[in-house]
């Protein structure tokens, strides 16, 4: 492989690291975009079958070309800027909503050593980058100069900031037991333990000792991505579509893509932090990237299932769940885990 690449390396000379990083970024982003596009189809199909419908089945065989048709349609539509809008911010808004979700993939490990930036503070980086997502919503809501988007933006800001806290505390538990902020190390640590030695790796993963945190993290993840049943941000029945009301064409598509990219990201994080990432559940099957994909797909199915099952939460219920239920639970569990780690019963020695 190195010998094969050598002429290319010489061609680019000192700019080679830059070129190579760009190649790696494209290698992550391009499949990700396809995944995002097909998640929209999967969502419509899954919800369709749950509601005893067929879902999209007209474009291409089994409707498989539907996301591409949607993409082309959105690309060809005009982006209308409302007359009273703050023009620059109106355009920047969707970009701010989409860019952080993509940037976060820089530290996500796909397999042993398969990561764009294997930084030591990976988990912190993720927390910081995902906390930027809220700007897209606020900025676009304000820049639209319209009432519904503004109400949507206010709701989103409050909701995302609230659930970030419980999410952060759930992460604190994970990094306490793995004693590392590096995502690859967190996965590797889950491969050790009594059950892993017995060949039952899936019982050694973090989801079992940190079960309440696993649930809190997943529910907070749904709330962070503004998915149903936490989608009061869009709230079609009350505020039309929240911050996206005034957007059309590709600008709207960016919000749409951002939401699905965030779903992929949250699912990938849940599988890496709590479900052992690329590790195989049993020792007689080899580890590999496919396990991560299967786990992520399973969690994404849960997302869609939740959307088809639950009615939208009322706003005060969302705030109550975030502040009065999740934060006390996570705080208690941080202390429980700390005591557990120092006690003789600790399983993380």
């Amino acid at each position: 492989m190195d010998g094969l690449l050598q002429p290319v390396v010489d061609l680019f000379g000192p700019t080679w690291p830059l070129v190579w990083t760009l190649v790696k970024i494209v290698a992550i982003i391009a499949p990700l975009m396809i995944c995002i596009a097909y998640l929209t189809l999967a969502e419509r199909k899954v919800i369709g079958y749950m509601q005893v419908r067929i879902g999209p089945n007209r474009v291409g065989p089994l409707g498989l070309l539907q996301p591409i048709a949607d993409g082309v349609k959105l690309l060809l539509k005009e982006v209308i800027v409302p007359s009273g809008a703050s023009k620059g911010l109106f355009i920047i808004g969707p970009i701010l909503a989409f860019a952080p979700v993509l940037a976060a993939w820089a530290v996500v490990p796909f397999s042993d050593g398969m990561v764009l930036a294997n930084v030591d503070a990976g988990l912190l980086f993720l927390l910081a980058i995902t906390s930027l997502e809220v700007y897209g919503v606020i900025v676009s809501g304000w820049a639209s100069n319209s009432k519904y988007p503004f109400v949507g933006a206010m709701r989103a800001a409050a909701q995302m900031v609230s659930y970030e806290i419980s999410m952060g505390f759930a992460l604190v538990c994970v990094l306490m037991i793995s004693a590392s902020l590096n995502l690859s190390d967190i996965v590797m640590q889950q491969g050790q333990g009594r059950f892993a030695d017995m060949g039952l790796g899936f019982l050694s993963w973090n989801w079992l000792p940190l079960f309440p945190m696993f649930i809190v993290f997943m529910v907070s993840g749904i709330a962070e991505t503004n998915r149903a049943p936490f989608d009061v941000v869009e709230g079609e029945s009350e505020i039309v579509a929240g911050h996206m009301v005034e957007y059309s064409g590709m600008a709207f598509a960016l919000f749409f893509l951002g939401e699905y990219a965030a779903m992929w990201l949250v699912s990938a994080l849940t599988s890496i932090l709590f479900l052992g990432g690329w590790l195989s559940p049993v020792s007689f099957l080899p580890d590999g990237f496919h396990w991560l994909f299967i786990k992520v797909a399973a969690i994404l199915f849960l997302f869609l299932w939740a959307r088809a099952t639950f009615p939208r939460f009322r706003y005060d219920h969302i705030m109550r769940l975030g502040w009065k239920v999740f934060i006390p639970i996570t705080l208690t569990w941080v202390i429980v885990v700390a005591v557990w780690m120092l006690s003789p019963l600790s399983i993380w020695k």
Partner: protein
Amino acid sequence: MDFKTFVFYMFATIMILASLRVITARNPVHAALFLVLAFFTAGGIWMLLEAEFLAITLVMVYVGAVMVLFLFVVMMLDINLDRIREGFWSYLPLGAAIGLLMVAEMVIVLGGSYFGLDSMPEPPAAAAGYSNTRELGRLLYTEYVYPFELASLVLLVAMVAAVALTLRHRKGTKSVNPSQQIAVKRNDRVRMVSMPTEKE
């Protein structure tokens, strides 16, 4: 000029321009967003100094939380720029004095070698496997544990005070308690009546 220097000057330029726009932008929301940009680039500069924990925390705390709430407030306020500008001349002497003081301090720091202040040796390069976060955590929870706990207590008191100051129970509000609503059982709301059919 190596790449690191180039990145530093790029960040520095962006940061200075953004900070300038913070004080010159006419629209308070734009000013707040430029402040976000300034924080973000400051995080980048700290990252260059290998202080990755501080850099990421800066972004997380200031950009991710503080500025969001700040924007929240600024967007909702109906700010009248003319009224804010009224006090410009009366505040100018104080502002100018503080500005001069900051310039003086920066001259002393930046011209340290000229004033003979460079007696502090340069820190040695970090060893491989050195973790900024681990080191900070160790210092905070061993050597500086009492000041750290004290600071957190002060913050807690400030938080309680802020809640106590803003929490007002108005009479006659129709707000509902979600906990009670969730605890409701079917039998509290509906009564099943078994009624035999009646004949004509």
